[in-house]
C-alpha cells in the first residue's frame, strides 16, 4: 500500500485538490426524500468527519458513495473526474473501502486469513501462505500496530480494538485512496478508542482520505480535520474542526446554522431560531 500513499507527515491542506466531491446529490426511497442537494468535499491526507443526528442521512450518504445504492441525481466526482458508481465493485475499483460497524470478520480464521479474505494470494494454484503472512505483517507494522502478538492469532481471541484495527488494515491493504469508517469506536473502551483514533489519524497522515462517522464529538474533534454536518437530509455546514468548538458542533447537529454576525461566522443556537419562527 505504500506505493500509492504520499510521504508521511504530509501537512493536511484545506486547499489541495479534492479526492471526492459530491455536488447537490439527492436520494429518495419511494416518497421519502432522504438527501436534499447534499454537497461534500473530501481531500487526501485529511479526516473528514460526517456528523448528524439519527436519521440525518449519514448512512444513506455513505451507501451512495460506496455504491450500495446510487444517488438519484447530482454530481459524483472522484479525482476531479465525474464517475458513475452503481455498485460496490465499482467503488472498490476506484479505491474506496468501507469498514462497517459490524466488522465482518471471520472469528474462526486468523488475522492473515481475514486480511486476505476474498483476495487470497495464490502460487501455482495453491494458497501462498508465506507471501500473505509477510505482507500482512508489513502492513500492520506500517500502520504501527504492535498490539497483536502474532498475525496467526485467531480473530476470536482479539479485543474489540484489535478487531477494529484488523478491519481497518484490511481496508487499506488494497491500495485504497478513501477509507470510510462507520462508528469505529462505538463499542470500545477508553484505551481502545484512543488506539483506534490514533490509527485513523495515521491513515490520513499517510496520505489517504478518511471519512469518519461518529456520534462522539470528542472523537470527532480529536482526529477530524473537516467536519461535515447533516441535518434532516441537508448538509448544513462543512467546517474545519479548528474553527469550531464542541458546543458549536452540537448546535449544528441539532439544527443550528452558520451565519455572519459582525464580520464573524458564528453558529446560531437552534433553540433561539426555533423561538423566532
Amino acid at each position: 500500500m505504500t506505493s500509492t500513499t504520499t510521504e508521511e507527515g504530509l501537512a493536511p491542506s484545506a486547499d489541495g485538490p479534492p479526492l471526492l466531491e459530491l455536488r447537490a446529490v439527492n436520494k429518495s426511497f419511494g416518497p421519502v426524500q432522504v438527501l436534499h442537494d447534499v454537497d461534500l468535499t473530501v481531500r487526501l491526507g485529511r479526516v473528514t468527519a460526517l456528523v448528524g443526528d439519527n436519521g440525518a442521512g449519514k448512512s444513506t450518504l455513505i451507501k451512495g458513495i460506496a455504491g450500495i445504492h446510487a444517488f438519484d441525481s447530482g454530481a459524483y466526482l472522484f479525482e476531479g473526474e465525474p464517475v458513475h458508481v452503481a455498485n460496490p465493485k465499482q467503488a472498490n475499483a476506484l479505491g474506496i473501502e468501507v469498514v462497517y460497524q459490524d466488522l465482518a470478520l471471520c472469528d474462526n480464521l486468523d488475522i492473515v486469513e481475514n486480511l486476505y479474505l476474498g483476495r487470497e494470494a495464490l502460487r501455482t494454484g495453491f494458497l501462498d501462505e508465506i507471501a500473505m503472512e509477510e505482507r500482512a505483517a508489513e502492513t500492520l507494522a506500517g500502520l504501527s500496530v504492535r498490539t497483536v502478538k502474532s498475525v496467526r492469532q485467531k480473530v476470536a481471541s482479539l479485543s474489540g480494538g484489535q478487531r477494529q484495527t484488523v478491519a481497518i488494515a484490511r481496508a487499506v491493504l488494497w491500495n485504497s485512496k478513501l477509507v470510510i469508517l462507520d462508528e469505529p469506536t462505538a463499542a470500545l473502551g477508553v484505551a481502545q478508542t484512543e488506539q483506534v483514533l490514533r490509527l485513523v489519524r495515521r491513515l490520513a497522515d499517510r496520505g489517504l482520505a478518511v471519512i469518519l462517522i461518529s456520534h462522539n464529538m470528542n472523537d470527532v474533534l480529536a482526529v477530524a480535520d473537516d467536519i461535515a454536518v447533516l441535518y434532516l437530509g441537508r448538509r448544513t455546514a462543512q467546517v474545519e474542526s479548528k474553527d469550531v468548538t464542541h458546543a458549536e458542533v452540537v448546535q449544528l447537529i441539532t439544527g443550528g446554522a452558520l451565519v455572519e454576525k459582525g464580520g464573524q461566522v458564528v453558529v446560531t443556537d437552534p433553540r433561539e431560531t426555533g423561538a423566532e419562527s
Partner: protein
Amino acid sequence: MTQSLVTDEVEEVPPAPRPSLADAAREYVSRVRGGDVGPLPAILGLVVLLIVFSALRPETFTNSFNFANLLIQSAPVIVIAMGLVFVLLIGEIDLSAGFTAGVAGAMLGVVSTRNDWPWWVGVIVCLATGAFIGLVIGVLVARVGIPSFVVTLAGFLGLQGLLLQIIGEGGTIRIRSETVLAIMSKNLPLWLGWALFVAIVVAYAAVSFRQLANRRSRGLVAQPPAVWLAKVVGLALLLGVCTYYLSIERSRNAAISSIKGVPIVIPVVLVLLVLFSLLLTRTLFGRHVYAVGGNAEAARRAGINVARVRLLCFVLCSTIAAIAGVLLASRVNSVTPSTGGGETLLYAVGAAVIGGTSLFGGKGRPVDAIIGGLVVAVVANGMGLLNQPAAVVFMVTGLVLLLAAGVDALSRRRAAASGRA
C-alpha cells in the same frame, strides 16, 4: 489536540522469535486449557476404549484378525463422515448421505452386474450419481433457500424409496467385479504395505520439513525442529505398529487360505484424507469454506460467492458418500434396499462430531472423521465381542456421542470465556 495523537513513529519490527520446545508445549497446554481442544478428547476416548476392551476381552479384541476387521468395518462410515465434514463446516447437515451411498452403490450394481459393463464404468456412474444428488440438494439449499435439514430429510425418505425402486422389493444386486470386491476383502502384499509405510513417513517428513525450513529462512515464526521431529517419529511409530500388526498371519487356518497384509481399503481412505485435507487447507475453495462457515455475511462482503461455495460443499459431500457406496457394496458383495440405511448415517454424523467437527460450522477437519469413526467402530466392535445385545450397543454409542457433543459445547463455552471461540 490533534497533534498529540500523531506522534508515534513506525519502529523497526523485531525479528520473529524462535520458540523452543518448552514454549511450544506451554502454548499447546494453554490452548487446550483455553478450550481449543481439537481432537484431543476423541483421541483420549479412543485410548480409554482400547484399554477397557483389551482388558475385558484380551483374546478376541486384541488379535490382529479383529483389528483388521475393525478397520475395514469402519471405512464406509469414515468416508461418509469425511464428506459430512464439508457440509458441517458451512453449518449445514446432510441426513441423506447414507442413502446417497446406497443409491450410488445400486447404480454401480446396475451398470456393472445387470448390464455387464466394466467395473470402472460402474464406479464412474456411481460417483456421477452421487454428484447429481448433491447438485440437487445444493441447488435447493443454496439457491432456493430451503433449510438443509428439511431438504436432506426429504432426500433421506425419497432416496430410500428410489433405492427400493431400483433394486426391487426384497431383491439384491450382486457385485461380481473382482476389482470392486478386492477393496474391502483383499490385502496388499506384505512388501507393498511396508513400502507404503516408508513412503508415507518420508513424504510427511520431507514436506513438513520443507515448510519449516522455508518459514525459518523467511524469518517467520516456525515451530521448533524438535516438535517436527516428535511429530514424524510419532507418525512413524503409529503407522509402523499398525503395519506390523496387519502383517501378521491372521487366518485361523493359514494352510488353506492366508490372510495377512494391510487391507486395500486403508490406503484408499488415506488417499482421500490427504486429498480432502489439501483441498481444505491449501486451496482458495477450502479457505472460502471455512470463511462461509465462520461468518457468511463477512464472506459475502469479501466478494466470495457464498451460494456457490455452499452448493459445492453439498456436491462434494454426496460424491464422497458415493465412494462410501462402493465400499458398502464391496463389503457385503451386494447391494440391497437397506444398503446405507439403518444407523450408517447417524454413525457418520456421530463420527464427525466425536472427532471434533462442530455442528455450528467453521470448525472441523477430514482427519476428525477418521478419529471419530474409529471411536464409533471400537464401541460397536468391542460391545459385540462382549456379547452385548444390539440394544446395549446402541445405548452406549448414544452415550458416547452425547459425551462428545457435551465436550464440544463445554469447550465452546470455555473458549468463549477465554476469547478463543
